């Protein structure tokens, strides 16, 4: 499109020279004034829009806009004054109705008036910065009608009274309420707020303050919360029906403050129905309701969490200090798991899986589990029980579930190295006695431990499994090469254990019976033939034997016994009676082990293949033992050896503790050296912090022990004190 060329001449607007009649303005105004009257008197139908419009147009055009505008103001005002009076005159319930009706009419009138005065609205008013017609109409309504003192106070009172009535259960005209509040909103948010909302909130606060006081005296916690919830929902519904939406958050705030926040503590602590009772009785619905309500007030959830946490801690503390519970470790751990399950369920179903609650639960468990120094041992015993018999016939998925739960408890332990010690011992027993329910389950747990603690933790454990497998292969090789030699002799099955991987055992003396010495030597030679440079020593305190025994009346039984027991029993092939001293001399089994061994052979009902004289409970040096010809049992196979892992006696426990402490020393030193090698110079507090951090996956080091180790390292010239700043240590390369 080409640009238009500038025209040589311009066309100007046609100017009509009008003669202005001085009375013109007045006349025109009168017409319009009359029209306004008619409009307010519902006689608009007789008017001509076109005529009126033109009149208004002309007035503005001829510079009489001011007169028009001020006339409008005056006229409208006087009409509104009349309307005020008629509203005021309305009685009782009709007041609101009248107000509403008149408002609607005013709006209609205003609309018409605005249409007529459109030209003024578009030109004169913006130019003179005056209030536009519509807005003017609203302002006048506000000032003349609503803020007319007689109406203002009555309006407020009636609105609030209606709300009160509805709250006490009466039915009110919601539509009317809606219209009125909408009117207030239309007049301006500040009108709505100052004339209504502010007072509404105040009155509501008083109302709920009173009501909550009543409720709290008469209801239990659950009931109270139901009522509070109901009132809250009511208010929300009220807002949606006849209040401005922005009032919702304000009124709910009021309800929450008065009904929940003010009584928070009392509700939670309420006797027989408070938070603790809900938890104990597993009232999920009530708990969920409490959670949702308390969430809305500041520190509401903090309160619930704190009360729950201290309750868990107390319960846990009670559990782990209860001597009855501690008698059976498996039962004890099961209780711990049940307790965790219970709270997990509460947090999932009632507390929306709130992470802060999860954390509080975890820290509580961590707190009290570590109060009992035997927790690591007990958890290992629990695992032992499961892997021996508890998981027999259980599906793979369920096995995983149980093991995962065990891992969860394991994570809470501060002294993971103690657990490792016991786990190793118990695992060794399981492997050697072939009592593990499922090899897969064992390995699965090792993998989980490895994932949690790293390769170092499990490398030795895996070593044990390897030994078992290797031994199987060795035995195959042995039988293949010597199978024909055995003939009628005893059958030997050997597990060769690598010293470093298995729990350390003291070497004990024990003279094996002649009958098996032969085959034992054969094996030793066979093994050392293929593995030069190794040393083998028989672990006589860990073996088992199956003996075929024939008793007095010819009853045959197969006895499953420990190696020690075998050594003792074999003696009775050559003698019917033997004294304690004789047995001790020949077998050279250590005293306490021998006594225990004899006790299990002679003093246990159903297993007494030996008889003891005298028949006392304990083994004395002066006792004599005889083969029990009269022994009977309804089972062909009789198990006499003790193989299952037991909870340690006090002295044994002390010993293990000591060993653990000894093991920790080099670990602490290694950590110190590692840290100092990297940092070169570091102050005392930081060393302690770093060492603690490095070792926390295994145990919590004692700061005093750390200091001792540092001093030992100084003495051995790995570190020195800084000559200037006495707080620092230096690494000596």
């Amino acid at each position, binding site marked *: 499109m080409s640009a238009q060329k500038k025209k040589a001449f311009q066309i100007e607007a046609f100017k009509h020279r009008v003669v202005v009649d001085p009375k013109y303005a007045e006349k025109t105004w009168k017409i319009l004034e009359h029209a306004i009257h008619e409009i307010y008197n519902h006689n608009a139908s007789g008017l001509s829009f076109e005529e009126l419009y033109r009149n208004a147009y002309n007035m503005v055009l001829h510079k009489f806009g001011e007169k028009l505008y001020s006339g409008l103001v005056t006229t409208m005002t006087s009409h509104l004054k009349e309307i005020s009076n008629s509203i005021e005159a309305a009685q009782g319930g009709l007041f609101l109705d009248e107000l509403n009706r008149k408002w609607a009419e005013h709006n209609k009138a205003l609309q018409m008036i605005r249409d007529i005065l459109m030209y003024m609205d578009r030109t004169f008013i913006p130019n003179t910065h005056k209030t536009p017609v519509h807005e003017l109409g609203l302002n006048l309504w506000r000032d003349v009608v609503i803020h007319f003192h007689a109406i203002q106070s009555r309006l407020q009172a009636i609105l609030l009274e209606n709300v009160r009535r509805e709250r006490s259960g009466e039915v009110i005209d919601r539509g009317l309420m809606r219209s009125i509040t909408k009117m207030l909103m239309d007049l301006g948010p500040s009108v709505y707020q100052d004339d209504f909302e502010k007072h509404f909130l105040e009155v509501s606060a008083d109302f709920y303050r009173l009501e909550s006081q009543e409720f709290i005296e008469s209801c239990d916690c659950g009931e109270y919360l139901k009522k509070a919830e109901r009132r809250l929902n009511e208010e929300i519904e009220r807002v949606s029906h006849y209040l401005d939406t922005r009032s919702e958050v304000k009124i709910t705030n009021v309800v929450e403050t008065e009904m929940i926040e003010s009584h928070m503590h009392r509700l939670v602590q309420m006797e027989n129905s408070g938070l603790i009772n809900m938890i104990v009785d597993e009232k999920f619905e009530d708990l969920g309701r409490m959670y949702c309500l308390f969430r809305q007030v500041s520190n509401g959830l903090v309160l619930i969490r704190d009360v729950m946490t201290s309750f868990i801690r107390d319960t846990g503390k009670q559990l782990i200090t209860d001597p009855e519970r501690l008698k059976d470790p498996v039962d004890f751990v099961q209780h711990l798991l049940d307790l965790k399950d219970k709270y997990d369920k509460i947090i999932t179903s009632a507390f929306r899986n709130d992470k802060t609650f999860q954390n509080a639960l975890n820290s509580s468990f961590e707190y009290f589990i570590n109060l009992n120094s035997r927790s690591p041992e007990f958890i290992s015993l629990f695992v032992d029980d499961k892997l021996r018999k508890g998981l027999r016939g259980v599906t793979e998925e369920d096995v995983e579930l149980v093991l995962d739960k065990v891992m969860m408890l394991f994570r809470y332990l501060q002294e993971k190295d103690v657990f490792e010690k016991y786990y190793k011992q118990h695992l060794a027993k399981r492997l050697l006695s072939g009592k593990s329910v499922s090899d897969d389950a064992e390995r699965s747990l090792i993998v989980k431990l490895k994932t949690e603690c790293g390769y170092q933790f499990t490398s030795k454990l895996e070593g044990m499994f390897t030994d078992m497998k290797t031994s199987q292969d060795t035995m195959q090789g042995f039988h293949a090469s010597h199978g024909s030699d055995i003939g009628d002799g005893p059958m030997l099955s050997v597990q060769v254990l690598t010293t470093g991987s298995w729990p350390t055992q003291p070497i004990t003396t024990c003279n094996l019976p002649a009958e098996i010495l032969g085959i034992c030597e054969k094996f030793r030679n066979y093994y050392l033939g293929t593995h030069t440079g190794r040393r083998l020593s028989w672990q006589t305190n860990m073996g088992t034997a199956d003996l075929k025994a024939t008793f007095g009346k010819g009853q045959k039984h197969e006895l499953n016994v420990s190696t020690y027991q075998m050594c003792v029993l074999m003696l009775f092939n050559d003698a019917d009676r033997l004294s304690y001293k004789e047995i001790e001399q020949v077998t050279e089994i250590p005293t306490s082990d021998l006594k225990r061994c004899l006790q299990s052979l002679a003093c246990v009902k159903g297993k007494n293949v030996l008889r003891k004289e005298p028949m006392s409970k304990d083994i004395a040096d002066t006792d004599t033992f005889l083969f029990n010809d009269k022994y009977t049992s309804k089972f062909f196979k009789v198990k006499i050896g003790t193989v299952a892992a037991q909870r340690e006696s006090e002295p044994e426990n002390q010993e293990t503790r000591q060993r653990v402490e000894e093991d920790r020393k080099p670990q602490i030193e290694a950590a110190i050296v590692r840290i100092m090698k990297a940092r070169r110079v570091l*102050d005392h507090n930081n060393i302690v912090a770093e060492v603690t951090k490095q070792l926390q996956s295994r145990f919590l080091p004692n700061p*005093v022990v750390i200091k001792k180790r540092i001093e030992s390292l100084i*003495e051995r010239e790995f570190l020195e004190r800084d000559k200037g700043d006495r*707080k620092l*240590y230096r690494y000596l390369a």
Partner: protein
Amino acid sequence: MERIDNLFYSFANRSSGMIDPEGIETLCSDMEVDHTDVRILMLAWKMKAEKQGYFTLEEWRRGLKALRVDTVSKLRKALPELEKEVRRPSNFVDFYSYSFCYCLTEEKQKSIDIESICQLLDLVLGSQFRAQVDYFIEYLKIQSDYKVINLDQWMGFFRFCNEISFPDLSNYDPDLAWPLVLDNFVEWMQAKQS
């Protein structure tokens, strides 16, 4: 020079060629000083003597030359001056650590038994820090955590005497890198005081 050497040989053992404990005792009685007197230790320090109870010719020469003496009576007269010199703060730390090392008689020995430590403390620090030494000695005798004291702990105690107000111990901070034996000592003191 000759006079110093001759003096040496008057106390030295014929066969070993060194002044041995017997010789030292003779020297002490000639100087009218008890052989357990701290000034003998100070003399050893001045000589930088290596082995407790023995002086070699070299050490003798070193010491007497430094003191500018060549007779017993001159040596005796030089002792007060020597003591002043040793007690000067700049020298005392060195003397203090020397006295510990001087008592390490065995080849690889790194620590000294409690009994000897108590005696040494009394000798070396007794005049300067009477109260601290007495209390610490009492503590060492009744505690059972340590059967020997090493150099680090020895030096630590000297620092302790210099820096920590006694007996209130108000500025002792157990979180700092004080040797553990001193932490325990302070704990024991505080238990006694309450």
